[in-house]
């Protein structure tokens, strides 16, 4: 569930996903007609706005938008100048920075970064083993290095 900016000028629904907009103040650009709207959201509720701010620069683009009156024509994520890309980045646990991980807390390899080298076969089928040495040689090297330094633990 998320709040929206329904631009009445071009009948475009700009979706404000709660992850980014739960507590947020700033300007969002309509994906349909590039009108800039000011909004202020508190705890997922629209506290102020949307108010038009002609001539001002937007702070963020919507992730996704569509036009329900136009056969649900959609602006998918990652259209330059319209929507922002969806990078699936997990946050660093306390500071909120994006954070890929290659090793668990005991320093064993873990497949938690993207993109992964393709490893599926026919119709998306996968084998039963992550061949780290072959698919991710740099991670394997790093693992061996950690092992040598005694950083790889059982617990």
């Amino acid at each position: 569930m998320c709040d929206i900016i329904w631009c009445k000028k071009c009948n475009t629904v700009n979706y404000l996903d709660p992850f980014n907009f739960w507590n947020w103040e700033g300007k969002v650009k309509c994906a349909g007609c590039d009108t800039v709207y000011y909004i202020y959201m508190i705890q997922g509720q629209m506290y102020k706005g949307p108010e038009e701010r002609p001539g001002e620069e937007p702070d963020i683009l919507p992730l996704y938008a569509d036009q329900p009156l136009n056969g649900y024509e959609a602006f998918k994520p990652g259209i330059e100048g319209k929507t922002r890309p969806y990078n699936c980045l997990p946050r660093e646990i306390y500071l909120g920075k994006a954070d890929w991980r290659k090793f668990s807390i005991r320093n064993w390899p873990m497949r938690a970064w993207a993109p992964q080298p393709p490893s599926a076969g026919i119709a998306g089928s996968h084998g039963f083993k992550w061949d780290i040495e072959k698919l991710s040689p740099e991670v394997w090297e790093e693992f061996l290095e950690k092992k040598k330094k005694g950083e790889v633990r059982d617990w």
Partner: protein
Amino acid sequence: MIEKERIPMEEQPGPRSKEELDANKMPFEEYCRKVFDPGNEFEKPAALSGVRWMSCTMYIFTPHAVSNLAELGAEVVKIEMPRMGDPMKHTSPFNECYYYPLHDERPMTGQGIGCVNANVNEYFITMDYHREEMKEPFYRLVRMSDGLTECYRPGTFDRWKQSYRYLMEINPRFIYVWGGGFGYGPKVFGGSYDILGQSHAGLASITGFHEDFGGHPVKHTNWCIDWYSGTMITVGVLAALYWRRKTGLGTMIEFSQVQCATRCCGYGVPLYGRFGIVRQRWGNWDTQLCVHGIIICGKSDYPDAKNPQLRDEARYVMVSAFNDPDFKELCNIIKRPDLYEKYQKHKDRVEAEAQVEIYDALEKWAADKSRSEVVKILTDAGLLAMPVYNDMEVYESPHYRMRGTVRWQFDPIFGDQLVHSTYSCGLMSKTPRRKFWDFRPVGADNVKIYHEMLGYPISTIKEWYDKRLI
């Protein structure tokens, strides 16, 4: 045997009396370690091997019902939406992804960690089974399986000609499970989530502190009703399998999540029936026993930690001293013997006003102490006290490590993984639960199931894949 060959009793090997037999037995602790033997589950047989189940499920509630079977040895085929997979893979926590790859076609779309533990040991295939072209493989799978679990709105599978009414005609031994929100009745179309289950069942109304203390009805942070209801479905499935052994016939199980959660309300509903009293919340204290609750201490056990969950939150202790001598001892420790004088009888101190006064005194005493200091003082005095653990402390707990409850496993696809699901569900000496893998990528077993099991040629599988049917 002739007389001279008989060996006198006292020379025969083995114990000579019941007492000697008992004395020769290994200590019970040692016996338990030997028969349960955590870490060597894979050497033992699996109770449900030979059972094949289809899982047309999503999120946590119904997947977990099937996962229980798979952990006990059933062969489970999880059927997901082509390219997308179970929506749970994309929802939690905060739509962030920690597992890759989800699918080679979508290299940047990984999956969240929220769905772990719910689809253990299953084979993952994709199928858009409401398309006419996929009816045949679906029915073929039904013929070769013992049962199916699904979670769609009531009647959806019936509309698609794959409800129990249709499937029992092609496999009379088939056990069919529908798990969802409400089931038939006035709210038949109501979907459900864990929080809805907790609310509708009245459970949330008795969780958390009373409003007088600044509390509100509280849902559990995790989806405890999803996990609980899923497990209750498994109980139903095991009974249905036993029934089928006796009669040769399948069963339809209809399982409403909101109905199941009412069971957690304990005596609340019967209480209302008898006296017309609506049970109130009583937070971290107990309506039947005092002292028997959780208190907050003044100092954290980890004052310098970066993580606020450790720095600020590691301050809670469970304290139990409800019988008279224990309560007296507790009052002496906190230097409030007057409280014992005032509330000598349990029925006096369990009253609401008394509890407010007693817990307040306890927290004042603990205000200049850390959690571990409080636990040490109370346990040294022979009282029951236990810190409220967080996940890190569960991980560090030697008790869980020794019993194998929490353990590291190198998942064959996703790498290093800390697991607790399978091994937290009780130990079985002969046929323990086991975890081979947590889940598999979307469509990972398409060839294994469609080609190797059902016998479709690879060319057909490729054609289905290109048409987005699988």
